[in-house]
């Protein structure tokens, strides 16, 4: 080791010229030979040392970096397996051909082992995940896991089927397969991937070298090295977030290239590329020689040429299928590999395909690109198509009948697309295309639906329903309600008032009036719908009615009534749809919110967790239904005093909403308010007020006049009181009181607003108004919560303060004797 003193002497000496240096060193080291020796050795080395080391790395050849990680000796025995040659190198492990070492019977296998140079915790965890994934997958078209363990040196390994076969593209070329035969092979891939998805696993690296075809023509899927497990309870970091950036960009979805979160549709995209390659012989997008940034750009914007531009006989349905699978936006792709497979089967059976005919789609897409419309509008068009197409199919019985109906519906869907486009094209010519807002186009469409489709009420009503959803997604509550009223009239005339269709439109009216804060109308609509469903004996309709009624009673503060409503709905849904249905999740989420308000926190948490579990069965990744549950869970945790957990859940919901809807979305209103309450609980009042004010901005931006702003102002008032700013609390509480008076006169929170306002006025000496407010506020709370409740006691404490102040004043006004 370096002696401290030697270092000091050396550093000094090294700056001196040779002669002075020798003398200096001798002087400094005196008669300490060890010190002298070390200083001299350092000085001797100093001539070359720096240059030598700085050039060292450059002297090693490129080969050092380019070469494989440390290989294992052949014939090495691991567990029951003897290694033969190395057959591959995945990103996360080396693969060897192996044979049974005990030679009891002949078995060849592929052994994958973590490379020694890479034994970090993360790489190891990732490796074990792959092993776990394989263990979960037992399918004819997926290479099986045979064995696994840890070597004597503690390195994990596992053993899989050794698949002797050709990559699928090479196989198709070698055997000169027809388009039909190639698609049959693709269907086998679909089966395997579908199976993986059902087991909550996304492959994420589907490419020809991972899809082998054996001599007997069987497809085998390999390499789950970067696959992702969708654990319902795994909230931890995604181990593959970096390594998911693939070595083969050609087959990766745009979102994956960009390193964003992916869902099952990323596999849909990869299969789309495979089909494109197998049928046309080319890959859709060429990334040769591009940097990652350029690839991302290209993948996100460049639409690949239609396959028919390479091989004209692929024009039509196959072009459409591949275009749908390769959509840039995951939401525009087939929603599952299963539906992609169905469409391929439709094509093979010469049945109409689900994928929209390119002409209309491309026109619509081009129009949308030209007009830069929002997501809401794309959703509008898609919903219009899918609802109309879906309607009749469900009622058709036989396969033939279904096929005919599909054809019919497709024609109708095409007409609808054309109709939508005619709305676009006939939009007000005085407005430059770029300035055309989604709102204006919807308005335009509404007029046309009324005038041009009057002779086909069913289509008219469906379109109105779709438009109301589009308005809702734009948060245009009044317009949405107007459209639904139109739909109601049409349903009334076409279906009669004793029909499921009529009950359905009432439920949606109840929902939209609830969003707008008109609880009275909402309750009336919901009750009417419930009566109709009961008369018809329609169980899901009844459940929907109970849920709605429960929800409005809940908002109005009638907790027991709400509880009864939700429980009835829950029972009906479970009976009719089973325990894992989305409707059950929805109702449980409502019930959780209610139990939270009823301060039955553990029960509430149970309901939320059950709702989350169900929804995660149905959705992967970001989804508004997930954020909704997170929000309720966060609020419950906050009320339980688990502030860190609550904040974490809020932040997750916030980020998810941001990704889903962009900044300043209305969904984050509740999240921001909740974060404010967490800050307030922690005593961070300034931060809390910032957040409540943020909530008010969002309300004013999206639903001005909604009673929600009453809650936010009440919160601002309370936070200001807590930080002793009565002067600022007064205007906020007055705002809150005015809003409650106008919109929710009977809500218990109004009681709290009133006594707090009174308490503030006490400071300014306005005793008459203070007394009136405090007394009436305390009464409301006592009636709602009983006299022992904390909320009531706070109000009573204010009342006591009032009396004290008043008696002090009375004493002061008694003249001294």
């Amino acid at each position, binding site marked *: 080791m370096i002696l401290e003193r030697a270092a000091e002497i050396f550093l000094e000496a090294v700056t001196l010229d040779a002669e002075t240096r020798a003398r200096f060193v001798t002087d400094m080291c005196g008669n300490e030979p060890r010190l002298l020796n070390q200083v001299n050795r350092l000085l001797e080395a100093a001539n070359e040392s720096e240059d*030598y080391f700085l050039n060292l790395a450059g002297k090693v050849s490129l080969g050092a970096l380019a070469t494989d990680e440390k290989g294992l000796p052949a014939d090495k025995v691991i567990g029951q397996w003897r290694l033969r040659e190395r057959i591959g190198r995945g990103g996360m492990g080396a693969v060897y051909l192996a044979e049974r070492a005990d030679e009891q019977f002949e078995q060849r296998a592929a052994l994958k082992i973590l490379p020694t140079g890479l034994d970090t915790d993360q790489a190891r965890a990732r490796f074990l995940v792959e092993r776990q994934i394989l263990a979960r997958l037992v399918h004819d078209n997926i290479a099986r896991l045979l064995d696994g363990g840890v070597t004597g040196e503690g390195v994990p390994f596992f053993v899989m089927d050794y698949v002797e076969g050709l990559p699928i593209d090479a196989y198709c070329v070698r055997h000169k397969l027809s388009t039909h035969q190639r698609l049959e092979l693709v269907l086998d891939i679909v089966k395997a991937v579908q199976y993986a998805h059902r087991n909550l696993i996304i492959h994420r690296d589907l490419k020809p070298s991972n899809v082998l075809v054996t001599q007997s023509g069987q497809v085998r899927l390999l390499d789950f090295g970067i696959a992702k497990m969708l654990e319902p309870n795994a909230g931890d970091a995604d181990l593959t977030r970096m390594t998911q950036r693939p070595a083969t960009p050609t087959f990766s979805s745009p979102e994956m290239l960009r390193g964003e979160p992916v869902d099952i549709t990323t596999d849909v995209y990869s299969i789309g590329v495979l089909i494109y390659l197998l049928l046309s012989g080319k890959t859709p997008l060429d990334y040769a020689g591009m940097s990652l940034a350029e690839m991302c750009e290209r993948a996100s914007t460049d639409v690949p040429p239609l396959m028919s531009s390479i091989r004209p006989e692929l024009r039509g349905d196959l072009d459409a299928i591949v275009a749908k699978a390769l959509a840039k936006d995951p939401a525009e792709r087939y929603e599952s590999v299963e539906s992609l497979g169905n469409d391929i089967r439709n094509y093979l059976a010469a049945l109409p395909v689900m994928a929209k005919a390119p002409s209309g789609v491309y026109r619509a897409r081009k129009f949308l690109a030209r007009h830069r419309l929002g997501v809401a509008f794309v959703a509008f068009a898609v919903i219009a198509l899918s609802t109309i197409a879906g309607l009749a199919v469900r009622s058709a019985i036989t396969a033939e009948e279904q096929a005919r109906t599909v054809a019919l519906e497709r024609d109708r869907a095409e007409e609808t697309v054309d109709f939508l486009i005619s709305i676009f094209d006939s939009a007000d010519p005085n407005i430059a295309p770029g300035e055309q807002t989604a709102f204006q186009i919807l308005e335009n469409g509404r007029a046309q639906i009324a005038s041009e489709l009057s002779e086909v009420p069913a289509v008219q009503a469906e379109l109105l329903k779709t438009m109301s959803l589009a308005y809702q997604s734009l948060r245009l509550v009044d317009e949405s309600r107007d459209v639904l009223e139109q739909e109601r009239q049409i349903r009334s005339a076409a279906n009669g008032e004793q029909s499921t269709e009529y009950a359905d439109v009432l439920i949606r009216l109840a929902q939209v009036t609830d969003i707008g804060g008109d609880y009275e109308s909402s309750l009336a609509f919901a009750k009417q719908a419930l009566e109709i469903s009961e008369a018809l004996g329609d169980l899901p309709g009844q459940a929907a009615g109970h849920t709605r009624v429960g929800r409005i009673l809940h908002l109005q503060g009638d907790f027991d009534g709400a509880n009864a409503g939700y429980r009835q709905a829950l029972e009906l849904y479970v009976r009719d749809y089973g325990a894992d249905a989305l409707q059950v999740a929805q109702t449980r989420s409502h019930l959780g919110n209610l139990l939270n308000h009823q301060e039955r926190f553990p029960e509430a948490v149970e309901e939320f967790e059950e709702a989350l579990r169900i929804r995660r069965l149905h959705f992967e990744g970001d989804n508004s239904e997930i954020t909704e549950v997170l929000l309720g869970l966060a609020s419950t945790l906050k009320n339980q005093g688990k502030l860190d957990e609550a904040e974490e859940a809020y932040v997750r919901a916030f980020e998810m909403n941001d990704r889903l809807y962009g900044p300043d979305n209305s969904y984050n209103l509740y999240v921001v308010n909740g974060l404010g309450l967490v800050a307030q609980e922690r005593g961070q009042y300034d931060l809390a007020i910032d957040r409540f004010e943020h909530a008010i901005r969002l309300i004013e931006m999206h639903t001005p006049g909604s009673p929600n702003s009453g809650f936010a102002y009440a919160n601002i008032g309370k936070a200001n009181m807590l930080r002793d700013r009565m002067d600022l609390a007064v205007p906020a509480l007055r705002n809150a009181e005015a809003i409650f008076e106008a919109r929710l006169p009977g809500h218990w929170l109004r009681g709290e607003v009133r006594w707090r306002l009174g308490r503030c006025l006490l400071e300014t000496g306005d005793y008459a108004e203070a007394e009136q407010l405090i007394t009436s506020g305390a009464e409301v709370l006592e009636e709602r919560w009983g006299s022992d409740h904390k909320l009531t006691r706070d109000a009573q404490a204010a009342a006591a303060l009032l009396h004290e102040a008043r008696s002090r004043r009375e004493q002061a006004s008694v003249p001294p004797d």
Partner: protein
Amino acid sequence: MSGDVGEITKLLRAASAGDRGASDELFTSVFQELRALARSHRRRWNGNDTLNTTALINEVYLRLANQTLASFQDRIHFFATASRAMRQILINYAERASAEKRGGNALRVTLTGLSLHEDSTLEDLLHIDALLSKLEDTNPRHCRLFEYRVFGGMTIDEAAGALDVSPATVKRDWTVLSAWLFSEMNAKKASQQEGSAS
């Protein structure tokens, strides 16, 4: 999407904040990227077999960071990680090459591009690694400094930023450290020559 920072930037920040998992993950990605890039360089080999490790790390940085400008601190942290990864790669290689030379474990791996003049360099590398491992216990900062300068190609100023000490201190440490390591290597070579002479 608002405020979108690259994945690597997130990892860098988590790692700087002491997140062990992020740190491991960062190391793994850098390690793999370095090798992937080296492989692609070799595929378009242009006759120049030596390589500029600093340029390589820079290239990896640009690829991983996707050219989004991370902060100076993020950059420094990245190069520190890359230095460590580069050390690991070179040492793995040297170990393997020397094992093959000894013929001991009958490694059936063909080394490509191993030229004669490299032989002594590889031995030096192994020796340096052993010395650094010893130094790790008593003076880890010196180890990092060596990695940054030698394997990561950092300048004195950059290393100072990464180690959070003044450039003057880094300069002094570097002079002493390199002289000491070099003298240790000289000493070993001298003793080996004596050994083979006797």
